[in-house]
């Protein structure tokens, strides 16, 4: 009871210190100003992560930033039939160039063969009309429908159609010369060209023209109706066509092998590759297109759903290609042996990698299915703002070092310890009440700042994001349940920093030493971690850490050793933020255990405090 009375006295005493109160007010102010600053820095964040129905293309105007004007500086918009084609239109330069060609046709073109000039002019006009028609529907560079136009399978289709239309009526050489710019003709292997265009029946030719015609009709319809569903269907049709073409190619290759078995070795590889392509289309491309349609996730609309889709696509394709090789193959491949040493280590690394892809897919799919984004898909969302602010713990840690270093040493240095120690209160009680008072003050300040910030983030970035869960293999977890343990864990390094400074304060009896030594240690740890960050660099995907190139120095060994010291745990908030050094190291498979770090801090704190009490109890007050 006496202790609590003394504690109350000491808390009152701390609250009477002007510099402490000023720092406390500054810290609390920071927790309020921080979200406001972040919100001002990126004002569109507030709307970006709002979950719900998204507008379709029509209202989803391109980001009309003024930088575009700078980029296309000096280019005048082209006006055709009353339609303005702006310089940032993806077809602008093509149209401009074609228009110049058509206007000054003779100046641009010289022809060897008779009739080529007329044919070229006709083709050019056709291409020009085609591009203008596209430019009317697609106005921005990142329009997802450009996929349809720039698909390599269809890149020569218009020229092919033109050849079909004119092959029977025109001079062969003149036709080839005319389409040269739009169709790749191999003069040394004319067989393929002839099989495709010459040696076919007129019915086949008519069908080819009709097919092309149908394709363009459909394409224009998809573009002009701006219908996402039709776009998906068209993409799926094209993918199916690809499978068909691949199958045809496989059949052709197999026929070659039958004709000449000696080719099997070299052609087998091509067949395998085509089969894998088909696999990929069937198991990945088409299901993902269907999934997009089902969830109405329009590519390139900047939504988190698209980021999640992209993650699914990437992870799935990596899962197809990152398949562990057999032990025999491993031993044959020198670079793998060099990198991993033993097969089991390699297997371990690859499996870990595959697990991380599976986890990525799981998180992305869960996010989309429930229409609630995981943390990683709302990097600037309210939740991440709250998690990022946990670095506030380090600021309070610094305050804790200052207070801890000040508490006892100042009493010694100012001589006030004498008048304090002659009171009817045992040394342990006096010491522990001072110890606890300042520590409680720091922790309260931390909690107050974090809670204030939590609310303020909600105000600035919207509370709705707090309702979104986090996903893992073991299920989903609400944000508060996800956040609270992390928030509380950040108190542990504060306690340790405080205990360490307090111990020095009691034993060294010098304020400057008791504050500067822990502060320098703290800064040193942060510097060490940022050096490691510089060494491991950044990467888009998690990689086994063995796969990084270290520029000759063995950072990995150093990090594995450091993981057992307090160094990586000093900036504990790094464990909880996206893309920090620690999270990167952990993703890379370095054994850094949060629970170990927290226990280490707890043990060290107890040791420091015990040393403080033990020394203080039997010390002569010579001041």
């Amino acid at each position, binding site marked *: 009871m006496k202790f609590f009375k003394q504690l109350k006295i000491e808390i009152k*005493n701390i609250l009477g210190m002007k510099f402490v109160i000023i720092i406390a007010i500054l810290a609390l102010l920071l927790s309020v100003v921080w979200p406001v600053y972040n919100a001002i820095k990126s004002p569109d964040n507030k709307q970006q992560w709002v979950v719900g129905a998204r507008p379709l293309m029509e209202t989803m105007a391109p980001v009309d930033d003024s930088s575009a004007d700078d980029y296309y500086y000096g280019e005048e918009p082209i006006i055709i039939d009353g339609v303005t084609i702006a310089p940032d239109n993806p077809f602008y330069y093509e149209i401009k160039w074609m228009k110049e060609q058509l206007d000054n046709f003779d100046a641009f073109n010289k022809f060897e063969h008779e009739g080529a000039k007329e044919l070229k002019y006709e083709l050019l006009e056709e291409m020009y009309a085609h591009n203008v028609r596209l430019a009317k529907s697609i106005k921005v560079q990142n329009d997802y429908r450009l996929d349809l136009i720039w698909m390599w399978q269809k890149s020569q289709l218009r020229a092919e159609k033109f050849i079909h239309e004119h092959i029977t009526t025109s001079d062969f050489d003149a036709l080839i010369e005319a389409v040269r710019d739009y169709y790749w003709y191999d003069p040394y292997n004319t067989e393929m060209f002839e099989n495709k265009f010459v040696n076919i029946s007129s019915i086949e030719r008519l069908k080819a023209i009709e097919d092309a015609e149908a394709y363009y009709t459909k394409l224009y319809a998809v573009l002009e109706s701006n219908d996402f569903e039709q776009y998906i269907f068209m993409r799926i049709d094209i993918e199916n066509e690809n499978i068909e073409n691949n199958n045809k190619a496989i059949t052709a290759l197999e026929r070659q092998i039958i004709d000449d078995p000696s080719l099997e070795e070299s052609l087998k590889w091509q067949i395998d590759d085509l089969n894998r392509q088909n696999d990929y289309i069937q198991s990945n491309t088409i299901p993902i297109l269907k999934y997009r349609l089902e969830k109405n996730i329009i590519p390139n609309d900047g939504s988190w759903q698209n980021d999640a889709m992209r993650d699914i696509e990437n992870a799935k394709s990596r899962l197809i290609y990152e398949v562990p090789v057999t032990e025999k193959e491993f031993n044959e491949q020198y670079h793998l042996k060099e990198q991993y040493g033993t097969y089991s280590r390699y297997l371990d690394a690859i499996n870990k990698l595959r697990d991380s892809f599976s986890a990525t897919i799981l998180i992305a799919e869960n996010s989309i299915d429930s229409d609630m984004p995981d943390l990683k898909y709302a990097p600037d969302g309210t939740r991440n703002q709250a998690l990022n602010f946990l670095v506030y713990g380090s600021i309070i840690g610094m305050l804790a070092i200052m207070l801890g270093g000040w508490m006892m040493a100042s009493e010694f240095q100012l001589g006030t310890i004498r008048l304090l120690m002659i009171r009817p209160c045992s040394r342990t009680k006096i010491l522990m009440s001072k110890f606890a008072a300042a520590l409680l003050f720091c922790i309260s300040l931390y909690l107050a700042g974090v809670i204030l910030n939590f609310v303020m983030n909600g105000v600035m970035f919207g509370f709705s994001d707090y309702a979104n869960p986090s996903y893992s293999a073991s299920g989903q977890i609400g944000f508060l349940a996800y956040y609270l343990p992390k928030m509380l864990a950040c108190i542990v390094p504060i306690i340790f920093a405080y205990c360490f400074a307090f111990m020095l304060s009691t034993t060294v009896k010098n304020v400057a030493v008791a504050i500067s030594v822990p502060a320098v240690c703290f800064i040193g740890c942060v510097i060490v971690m940022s050096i490691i960050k510089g060494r491991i660099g950044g990467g888009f995907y998690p990689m086994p850490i063995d796969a990084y190139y270290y520029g000759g120095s063995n950072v990995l060994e150093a990090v594995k050793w450091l993981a057992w010291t307090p160094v990586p745990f000093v900036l504990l908030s790094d464990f909880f933020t996206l893309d920090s050094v620690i999270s990167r190291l952990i993703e890379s498979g370095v054994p850094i255990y949060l629970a170990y770090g927290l226990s280490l801090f707890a043990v060290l704190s107890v040791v420091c405090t015990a040393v403080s009490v033990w020394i203080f109890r039997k010390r002569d007050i010579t001041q």
Partner: protein
Amino acid sequence: MELLRIESLTKVMKKRKILDNISLHVNSGEIVGFLGPNGAGKTTTIKMIMGLFTITSGKITVCGHDVVTDFESAMQNVGGIVENPDLYKRMTGKQNLEYFASMYSKDKIRNIDDVAGLVKMSARINDKVKTYSLGMRQRVGLAQALLHTPRLLVLDEPTNGLDPIGIKELRDLLKYLAKNAEAGVFISSHLLSEMELMCDRIYIIDEGVVIGEKTIEQVKDSAEEQIFSYSFVTSGSERVLEYLKGLDANCEQRNGGVTVVMKRSEIPEIIRTIIGMGIDIYAVNQAQRTLEQDFISMTTGTKTQIR
């Protein structure tokens, strides 16, 4: 009633014996002086009474409570100043007093304004301590020692920095407390003249050993037989010098007067003689009784100088 009892107290610091087997006691209603030169062990003893130093061997009890085993009870009964009273400079005098007062049981705490009045600090008690002079800090230091109506007061050279009026006030206050509140006072000093004026008993300490204990009567009696230096300012210095030389005394002419060293008891006769010789005496000054002289006279010649 015995308020403070020190039994064969010894303190060893860094292998050096600071205190060697000292014993003393203080009764209620008594002002006890603790006299000794610098470095004799006065402050060390007081720090051990107040719990600032550990005890190597021996025993200290305050009102029957052992200072080591029953520290908190012992300290409830003691108020004191150790060395300079270093207060919290960022606080006002009153805040300092409130802070210290809060550590005692409430029923014994005096009204802080009353205590401030007692030490004549009422006017400045609400100012920051950093604006105080040394004397004012000494007064607040005394106030914090009186806060909880302690039965024993332990004061370490409390007159440091006080002006003559302040010293007199302190003296009167201590006498009042001893007489009316039955408090015991243990006060250290290196000035015997100061001690003489208020103490009932004096312990003399040198080199960590108590070398004498005297009541104030004994001090005064012994003073009669002590040898001092007197200077006579008269209208006829030469004749006085001649006369004194005739008595075979150690004398000389200095600063326009005549200085002579002799026993205190012989002086009245000499004054009568000089007046009888028709010489006017303007002043007779007894030189300050220095500690050195006290030691010379009080200890049987073993301590010849202060170390």
